[in-house]
């Protein structure tokens, strides 16, 4: 017993180093698996507050470009609104059924990163604004990511520029779908894998979300096909997609809540009830 205690006292530096290193290593492993980074994240009072106050100043620098983006989006929405083929007077509205299954709420990105291999964003909305894990995040141009952790006032987002993120996406014209992943290289290019070999694809085709994941609605724009090649087994295409979104300058985003997600998950998990 005496010897064991002596050994511990003599090597306490090394043992402490091993302990601390393994704790840090544990956190690292955790952060690499989906939705597990519970303890160390920036959605807390201290780092969220600091990022928020710095962003309050930085916002002014990008005010002009952000305004132009918002105006462009308004313009697009207006042209959709006033050019509807059958306008309101012909449609019968059943007021007892609110057909809304997706709820949008605006948020501001207060911390953005795109140079690491696992990038996370921080939003200035949290549980207080009824934002929860697994909500989708889009900007006016296209998809941004999925909510990971939330605190009272802040939320972290797994960016699509994260090697652990997988989002279901499809070809706009033919409905062939696959998973959107990122290889960690360019912040403007993501990869769409597992597209069947028979799918007709061409450079410049549009990729949209598939609506199969209950996180994003269908037809949210992702990007255009930059190049493509067959994978090693020669059964599936791997497509390099150029994003519509400039992930390096994000400010105004929208958080999407799918109201039907519980119903869908219940149906998928208990198919025989």
């Amino acid at each position, binding site marked *: 017993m005496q010897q064991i205690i002596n050994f511990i006292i003599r090597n306490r530096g090394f043992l*402490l*180093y091993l302990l601390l*290193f393994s704790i*840090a290593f544990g956190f*690292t492993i955790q952060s*690499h698996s989906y939705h597990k980074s519970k303890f160390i994240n920036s959605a807390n009072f201290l780092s969220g507050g*600091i990022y928020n106050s710095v962003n309050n100043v930085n916002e002014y620098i990008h005010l002009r470009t952000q305004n132009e983006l918002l105006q462009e989006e308004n313009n697009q929405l207006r042209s959709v609104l006033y050019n509807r083929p059958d306008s309101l007077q012909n449609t019968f509205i059943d007021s007892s059924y609110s057909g809304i299954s997706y709820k949008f709420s605006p948020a501001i990105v207060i911390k953005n990163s795109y*140079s690491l*291999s696992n990038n996370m964003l921080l939003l200035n909305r949290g549980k207080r604004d009824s934002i929860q894990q697994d909500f989708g995040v889009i900007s006016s141009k296209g998809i941004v990511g999925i909510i990971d952790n939330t605190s009272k006032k802040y939320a972290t987002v797994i960016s699509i520029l994260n090697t652990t993120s997988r989002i279901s996406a499809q070809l706009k014209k033919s409905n062939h779908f696959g998973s959107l992943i990122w290889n*960690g290289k360019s912040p403007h290019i993501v990869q769409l894998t597992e597209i069947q070999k028979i799918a007709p694809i061409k450079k410049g085709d549009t990729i949209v979300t598939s609506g199969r994941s209950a996180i994003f609605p269908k037809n949210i724009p992702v990007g255009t096909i930059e190049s493509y090649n067959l994978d090693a087994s020669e059964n599936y295409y791997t497509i390099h997609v150029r994003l519509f979104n400039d992930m390096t300058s994000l400010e105004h985003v929208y958080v999407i809540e799918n109201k039907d997600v519980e119903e869908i998950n219940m149906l998928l998990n208990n198919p025989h009830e």
Partner: protein
Amino acid sequence: MNSIVLTHASRFILLVLLQVLILSHINFLGYINPYLYILFIMLFPLKNNRVIFLLLSFFLGLTIDMFLDSGGIHAAAAVTIAYIRPVVLKFSFGAVYDHQTMKFSNVEFGSKLTYIVILTVIHHFVLFSLEIFNFYNIILILQNTLFSSIFTIILCLLTTVIFNRRK
């Protein structure tokens, strides 16, 4: 004693804020960032309590991790260089360090450069290995280590030179 604690506490906070608010958003050529916060570990007093030093380094790394949402990679890298610092000190300063008379403000430039280079390269190698976490991408790890190290070393040297002048 109190003034030393105060100096190092304020250095800790300043370096963390500088790192997370400015240096981690430089993204020179797309991905190159300096990690200046390790200066805290490099300039920590030589006569120290080993346990406290290791715990402080771990805490420094963890704070950076919290801000950058990077799991525990900075904590692991910081605690590694804190652990091997005595060996590196002995290697780069030799007899001066053994006699316990050394001060960072009056050592010769060559040995200081060796000291900073070794610690920076080891830190960055551990950091990028854990971040990329895939030894198939060893080229990417080495490339990131090399470029970011150059950036960090230049900044470290500049900072130490500028802040020594004043004394």
